[in-house]
């Protein structure tokens, strides 16, 4: 049953892939630590690199996954030292992390967060190893109708769990799906929404879309922050670098509980680090905050969201690798990257691509150890990255965006399109949209339509096929419940997530 893992370690332990896992961990930590650039932006900006190097699919995925997990580590730097969360998932880290830094415990806080991140990720990777093959067995039973229902469930759970505004989450997802319909229709060869522009016949390119949406819009947002002089917190001194064993032991149950919570939430399609860290923090507050010190620099209040954060990052690989449904915006980007290698995501991926899947899981184990070894002693060095001035950072992001798109297309239209998408992404973010559902919609849109049409052509156009098997009925009911329960249980939710609201 675990052949894939043995095979995977065979892949991941080749010198090239070991080097890439290290490079990914290093680059990820650096990019995650850059002010204003969270994990998802880091991946978006660095993604073209994987193609530039001409890597095979499994190596590219190992590099990108290393960047992903690494940037989750790096992201905590600005949360703890500057009180500026790099992304939504890091908000909870600031609540107790920054007060700790203010008390002069920045170093131990960084160390503790590295240890909790390591444990959270390890628990989740073991969970991934155990669960993925089981889920993959179920996944084989998925026909097009079930797959379509599963994607509906993913969007439903995302809209229910993510962000404050479910309507905007859904609108974002619909917009993403709509963008994916541009180009030649694969079923009939009809051109859709191309407006007689040959550049659009192949659809909107994934790299152009992602870089525009994240990197270009980020440039505009950073300009705004600089103009308003936001986010220029005093950087706390690091102090003692190492975390004490007693401090880790003080948090051990908080870390373990939060790891499990993070993993379970990460596995749910569509929900990622932000939900996981919020639930873990509030749970931990209820269980172990006896003297009301959460929010004032309690070590457990830092360990819980950090463990959950990283556990959910690894957990979100479960639906991605077994079902082809990304568990978060970031895994949606990874999945899109795989599709560029002509690897079809979906229930069969685990069987058809054991090298890619096994290699990735094995490299997560390796990368995680590397990250701990990198981050414990070098926290002070990485923290310097925070001081990179914006006037140097922003042109660098622009350069990476331009070169990333140019080297794939050597085409001016692609660059212009990237800029237009960047303005679109900026406007969405100003309107309070999260970009993750847009990416998820864009990546899944084509698959969604394809499966819907395949299901309906099997049934000769009878919509009933979508609700025929027990599996698909179960998924539809689950989707409905996920949307309806929070609606009716609003009061319960207010009780359950007070800290999430306060932030």
């Amino acid at each position: 049953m675990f052949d894939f893992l043995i095979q995977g370690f065979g892949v991941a332990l080749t010198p090239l892939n070991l080097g890439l896992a290290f490079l990914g961990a290093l680059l990820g930590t650096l990019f995650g630590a850059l002010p204003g650039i969270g994990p998802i932006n880091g991946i978006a900006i660095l993604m073209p690199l994987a193609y530039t190097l001409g890597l095979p699919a499994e190596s590219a995925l190992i590099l990108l996954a290393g960047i992903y997990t690494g940037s989750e580590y790096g992201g905590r730097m600005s949360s703890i030292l500057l009180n500026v969360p790099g992304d939504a998932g890091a908000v909870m880290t600031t609540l107790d992390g920054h007060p700790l830094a203010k008390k002069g415990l920045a170093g131990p806080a960084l160390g503790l967060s590295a240890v909790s991140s390591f444990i959270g990720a390890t628990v989740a990777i073991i969970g991934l190893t155990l669960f993925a093959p089981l889920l993959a067995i179920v996944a084989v039973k998925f026909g097009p109708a079930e797959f379509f229902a599963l994607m509906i469930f993913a969007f439903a759970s995302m809209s229910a769990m993510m962000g404050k505004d479910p309507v905007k989450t859904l609108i974002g997802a619909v917009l993403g799906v709509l963008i994916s319909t541009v180009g030649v229709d694969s079923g009939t060869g009809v051109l859709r929404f191309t407006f007689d522009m040959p550049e659009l016949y192949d659809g909107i390119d994934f790299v152009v879309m992602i870089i525009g949406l994240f990197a270009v819009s980020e440039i505009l947002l950073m300009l705004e922050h600089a103009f308003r002089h936001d986010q220029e917190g005093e950087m706390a001194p690091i102090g003692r670098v190492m975390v004490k064993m007693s401090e880790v032991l003080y948090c051990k149950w908080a870390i373990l509980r939060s790891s499990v919570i993070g993993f379970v939430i990460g596995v749910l399609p569509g929900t990622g680090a932000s939900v996981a860290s919020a639930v873990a923090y509030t749970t931990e507050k209820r269980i172990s905050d006896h003297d009301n010190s959460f929010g004032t620099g309690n070590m457990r209040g830092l360990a819980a969201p950090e463990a959950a954060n990283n556990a959910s990052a690894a957990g979100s690989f479960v639906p991605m690798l077994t079902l082809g449904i990304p568990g978060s915006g970031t895994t949606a980007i990874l999945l899109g990257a795989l599709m560029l290698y002509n690897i079809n995501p979906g229930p069969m991926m685990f069987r058809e691509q054991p090298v890619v899947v096994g290699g990735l899981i094995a490299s997560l184990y390796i990368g995680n150890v590397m990250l701990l070894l990198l981050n414990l002693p070098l926290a002070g060095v990485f923290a310097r990255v925070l001081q990179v001035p914006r006037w140097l950072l922003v042109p660098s992001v622009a350069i990476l965006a331009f070169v990333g798109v140019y080297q794939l297309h050597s085409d001016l239209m692609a660059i212009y399109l990237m800029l237009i998408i960047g303005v679109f992404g900026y406007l969405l973010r100003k309107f309070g949209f999260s970009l993750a559902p847009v990416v998820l919609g864009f990546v899944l849109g084509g698959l969604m339509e394809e499966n819907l049409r395949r299901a309906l052509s099997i049934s000769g156009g009878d919509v009933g096929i979508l609700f025929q098997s027990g599996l698909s009925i179960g998924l539809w009911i689950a989707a409905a419940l996920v949307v309806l329960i929070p609606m009716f249980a609003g009061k319960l939710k207010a009780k359950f997530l007070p800290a999430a609201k306060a932030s």
Partner: protein
Amino acid sequence: MKLAADRILSLLLLGLAAFIAVQAWQLQVPFSYDPVGPKAFPLLLSGLLAILAIVLFIRPGASGQWPTGALLLRLVFTMAVLGIYAALFINLGYLATTALVSIVIAWLFGAAPVKAVVGGLLLAVGSYLLFTYGLGISLPTGSWIESLLGSN
């Protein structure tokens, strides 16, 4: 008019939904065995988008902070700089355009002129060396340099 932003957005989205519906409706579909065809999915989506837009209109969220005045001007200027970067990227070449754009952006982000110039030049040269020799990416040298080299 505190809640205006989301209402304007919902009207825009309604317009978009209508536009998509009309565009999808006009698709010429050749005969095929596919009972659904290319129209149905976009039509479905545009319907969904319209419903969501109406919900947004009825229950708009907070408007947030929108850029005005000097900031708006800077944002537009930045996009214009990036547009010019794209337009000149191939003909003027990577080194020259990147240096210029980096200098302008650095200056926009509040760097002192000397710092901006030095930083921009270093960024351009450094990234050029990294990309071409480190990663093996071929970047445009620029037609003017090529013609100079060609005339020699």
